[in-house]
């Protein structure tokens, strides 16, 4: 996974939005509760947007330190890719 990767969800991976605003990533045999920036980032995953575009959008939308947000999101995407929950087209 790098900035130009175009991530998409692996098989059996779904985002779930609840009425109370919470967002979870449902994966085979587990669920991850997402914080708001991570939720927005994963909502933008569509196989077309690059990781860079996704991260830029999140950084614009939240009042966060840009470098820290970038590092955290890149880390999250990398971990999800390692587990097969995200696949990437370069």
């Amino acid at each position: 996974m790098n900035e130009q990767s175009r991530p998409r969800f692996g098989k059996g991976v779904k985002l779930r939005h609840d009425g109370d605003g919470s967002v979870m990533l449902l994966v085979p045999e587990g669920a991850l509760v997402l914080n708001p920036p991570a939720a927005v980032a994963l909502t933008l995953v569509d196989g077309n947007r690059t990781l860079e575009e996704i991260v830029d959008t999140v950084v614009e939308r939240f009042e966060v330190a840009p470098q820290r947000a970038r590092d955290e999101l890149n880390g999250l995407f990398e971990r999800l890719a390692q587990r097969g929950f995200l696949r990437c087209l370069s």
Partner: protein
Amino acid sequence: MPVLSAPTSLGTASVDGTPRPLSLLCELTYRCNLQCPYCYNPLTLRDYRDELSTQEWSGVLSDAAELGVVQAHFSGGEPTLRRDLATLVGDASRAGLYTNLITQGTFLDDDLLDRLLDNGLDHIQISIQAPQTELADRIAGTEVHEKKLDALRRVREREVALTLNCVLHRRNHDTIEDVIAFAEDLGIERLELANVQFYGWAYRNRTALMPTLEQVRRGEKVVAAARERLHGTMEIVYVLPDYFGEFPKPCMSGWGNEFMTVTPNGYVLPCPAASAIRDLDFENVRKRRLGEIWRSSDAFVRYRGTSWMPEPCRSCDRREVDWGGCRCQAFLLAGDAGLTDPACSLSPNHRIMAALREAAEDIEPAARRA
């Protein structure tokens, strides 16, 4: 079904302090055509024959969705022996639940598979007993391996997430490389290698199934090398046996914290192995709604959170990391579900684990029978 995997989720607390259940295990039936000696189902299989009807299960699923459950796992016994399986998957899916089928695969023909997928099934876990037909059939007690291969190929032909599972124990631990090669040949993207956990039939057979320390250490090395080699192609989940670790597993991510099981005849358990704890009072969905049972039944309340904990858990920094470990194991090994799991090296009963490891014998385990 053979293996208990703790969900990998992070709990969410609700406003009134009762946690929100996230995961429901539907044990549709304990019937099974296999006789695996490591099955975690209770020994008293005959007590569970009065199975919930389709309508009763539909009610459970809709109550679960209302409580905030996000995933329904269909297991058993062998869940495909229920003719209404596809109907129930459809009910769960329409209620917004992520649906997971945990099966040994021997009845998964084209027709059933297509009906399940049409009804929204999200993920299938198929288990094998070993990578070679002869050994696999010997462990299962019947000729099933070739049927499982057919089922695995059928699933691979379709667009659905698949996990291959193999429960590891003394009789098949040395085939771990072959299990990985078997998975590679089939193009499996997710492989779960789960060391046997000792509940139900597995507890009864513990001396025959206990792997040796050499097997476990070797397994770790083989998995580490395979993970590096297959990085990005296959995820390998290796569930360590807690007889060989320093700390217990965070069983169920905390008792009554996010997970519940409904047995074939409607009892609601905080953990699939909990029926072993004989002094807990379990309630039934035939008598009380699922939400009330979750919130206030003795079985769920007694070990929820941290206030029940004895020392060394009570003052331990890990109390909300491993939640005191497994209540069932504390009951089975130390005689009291309210004690620290003996798997913890800080438990005064930890020596029981070593004694059990040393009691391991190279003998044939007894088959599961109804």
